[in-house]
């Protein structure tokens, strides 16, 4: 145990770890945003932001949210790293997989290719915001019923895309569903189940 690596690491006591944790907590917890009361505006805790920041006021899942954020940050990184809404996933960061799909103003978009700054004044809906208080959204239930998922990583994006697909009127035939769901890659290959789930849920969802 003589190498520098060890001497750096091993003397670290439990107390030191806790101290570090305390310091860290003072600079902000990312998970607080989800716990805010409905009526309050969620203001971003004092997370560090670098570069030039912009002020954003928007609604996220119905809740007023205000945040100062690095102007180059993506909406996906705002949701995940600042607001603690980790349902939307990063699968490519280039608009090539669909795992980050959320709705802005009711329309599906790729949050990884959307500047966070662009949602100022807009309504953002994520997978965390679609269920009703008493249960699952019909599309979520249909995904369970048809086992339209495997690892589950692309699933929030698939479901957000699927709901929009129905609302847009692009779910009237299996061919239409396949085409309009092709922006969401499922590497586990659950496509057959996804099409079946959308066919099941479509009649229960209002067209936009």
């Amino acid at each position, binding site marked *: 145990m003589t*190498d520098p*690596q*060890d001497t*750096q*690491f*091993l003397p670290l006591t439990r107390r030191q*770890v806790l101290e*570090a944790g305390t310091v*860290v*907590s003072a*600079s902000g*917890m*990312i998970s607080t945003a989800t716990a805010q009361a409905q009526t309050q505006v969620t203001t971003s805790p004092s*997370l*560090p932001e*670098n*570069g030039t920041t912009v002020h954003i006021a928007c609604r996220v899942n119905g809740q007023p949210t205000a945040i100062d954020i*690095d102007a180059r*940050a993506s909406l996906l*990184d705002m949701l*995940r*790293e600042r607001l603690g809404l*980790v*349902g*939307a*996933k990063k*699968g*490519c960061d*280039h608009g*090539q*997989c669909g*795992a980050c799909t959320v709705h802005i103003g009711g329309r599906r978009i790729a949050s990884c290719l959307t500047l966070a700054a662009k949602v100022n004044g807009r309504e953002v809906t994520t*997978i*965390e915001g679609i269920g009703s208080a008493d249960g*699952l959204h019909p599309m*979520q239930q249909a*995904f*369970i*019923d048809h*086992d339209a*998922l*495997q*690892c*589950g*990583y*692309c*699933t929030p994006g698939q*479901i957000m895309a699927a709901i929009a697909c129905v609302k847009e009127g692009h779910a009237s035939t299996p061919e239409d*569903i396949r085409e309009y769901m*092709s*922006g969401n*890659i*499922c590497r*586990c*290959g*659950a*496509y*057959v*189940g*996804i099409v079946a789930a959308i066919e099941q849920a479509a009649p229960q969802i209002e067209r936009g």
Partner: protein
Amino acid sequence: MTQERTADRPRVDAYEKVLGRALYAADQPIAGLLHAMTVPATIAKGRIEAIDATAAQNVRGVVRIFTHEDFSQIKTTPAARGAYGQPGKGHQPMTSPVVRHRGEPVALVVADTLEAAIEGAEAVKVRYAPEPFSARMEDELASPEAQPDRQLSSGDAEAAFAAADHRIDVEYLHPQQHHNPIELISTTAAFEDGELRIYEGTQAASAFAGGLAGMMGLEPTRLRGVSPYTGGGFGQKNGIQEQSVLVASAAALLRRPVKLVMPRGQLFHTASYRPRSRHRVRLGADGQGRLLAGLYETVQQNSRYDGFACDHGANPPRMYGYHTWQGNDRIVRVDTQTPGHQRAPHEHPASYATECAMDELAEAVGMDPVELRLANDAQSDPITGKPYSSRHLAGCLRRGAEMFDWSRRIADPGALVADNGDLIGLGVACGSYKGSMTATVTTLRLFASGRCEIATSGHEMGQGIRSVIAAELIEILGVDPAKLDIHIGDTGHAPQHITAGSWGTGSVAPAARSAAMKLREELSVLTGAPLSEEPVHVQLARTRRPSLEVTVNTIPLGKDAQIIEQLRRGIPSTTGPEYPDFMAFSWIAHFAEVHVERSTARVRVKRVVSVADCGRVMNRRTAESQVRGGVVWGIGAALREAGETDPRFGGVLNNDLAEYVVPVNADIGAIDVDFIDQPDFKLNMSGVKGLGEVAMVGAAAAVVNAVYNATGRRIRHLPIRIEDLL
């Protein structure tokens, strides 16, 4: 114990997944997290002469920039590569100035925010001294190994081939492929409760305790690997990543939690992949189509520095009753990162080559391809002479042919035409995958309230392992799945085996089952009487004990108790396909219908029928999904996927999901699945073999054979693209 054998239940973790509440590695809420970004090497081979981090240091928010000078003490241990466990010198980037492949990390920038880390990484300037290299096996500096990795033979295959009535001698080329699970491989290292926790989407959480501890000179007990949900693995998450120890070491040095989400473009260069391979297949048959000889020589690429054996030759001789066989598998070393296991790692390329060759043989003999396979069915292994524990391949073929309406096939290519003028082709191919198992340590706790908790070895990466565990607990204990907590993928709960090679179900189902049976026994001892039909927790409540706990170590057939110690240390140890008294494989038959557009030669796979013999089916719904997924992979392999290397530069040029083309929803038609569903109790008490990998084996060949039937073109490389058929 009144449940049907093949239950069709919702996937037990589907609820968390559709709600977006399943937490993957990068989703963990950790206070004070720092963000890291790697700087990838822009040369394929050479040395770092200098790193200028001045500009990067000045980026606002950058905390620290690590280079090889900070990490020279990291040890490259035999266990460092986790799952591969195969001999080799290994190469851990950033422990020296040496660059061994394009894209490997040469610096790690840690910052307050992700945006600052990225800006910092872009600002790091590296001066290299490049060296000559070859990144493909055809290129000048590629180094073939003198000795084959594997040789199997039975009888005088050369002589039998020479004397055969019908001879096929063909070479097939399989491209490099990349797993591309949609979860980017991320590593988060954080001190929590006095231990260093590594959150990384993995199929081998114990690799962190075993491998990372060794690399960092730490006690394994101070590290905990956590991966309750892995966002797809397919073998790419079988071991420690190039980034893992770098992030862990950065966290140790900074005494702050650090997260790195590796960009996909870099993952094409840091994570494993399926290497390119060439396959020469010679088949000899008599006038009746009996297989007199099979000769099979393969070669695959490998890195300069690791073991990753070429293993194509293992399964093909076991597919049919070959009278003689000869095979050998070799590697060629090139300047890339080490390839690894990717879904049906060698079984898929081998089945592609040999099952396409079978199609060519059927044509040469003038036999129907299904009939040719049935005529050569066998119940024992031509190499060892041992019987198969179970083999219902003929049943798969017959049932599949019926479901698919194979009788409409016309041998003459192009004879079937769709209403819109497309050429219709029908193809068949078969596959096998070893029946394998590994050790598990399982703790099962039943509460008088009805709640039930199980901690065991295994990872969930989409195959539905929680549903398998639940199935056995429901069957033996009658527990309510809604009151079941399943702790897997976390070394804090149980030692974790590498969950790969389709041994997950065969290992964890018997584990859950035997734990449940032991719990019944102990409950019976407590109650002093045989258990009644009442729910077990009600019977437990009557004993006035709040809970009852049992722990069970399961040791797979043919292994001894030592395997438990290996499991605890994160060292892979598995069984199969050869057991003392038999050989064990899962089997499958795939039937594919393709439509080929005459003008633009676009190939569309309209329907696939797959029938599998995987022993007992634990959950019909998740099993069907797994087979469909394997078929989608087969379609991707046949028609879409290839990692492409420009020999002048090395690396992978098409390193994103736009250019590395995987199937999308519109590519996939009907996929109808059925199972033989005959338990194989010779292998384990649950009667299960494996399913996740065999699902893919043969699927690509069925598509390729269908393309031939439609077009009359034998395309002997993958993927088949428009330009091959125009």
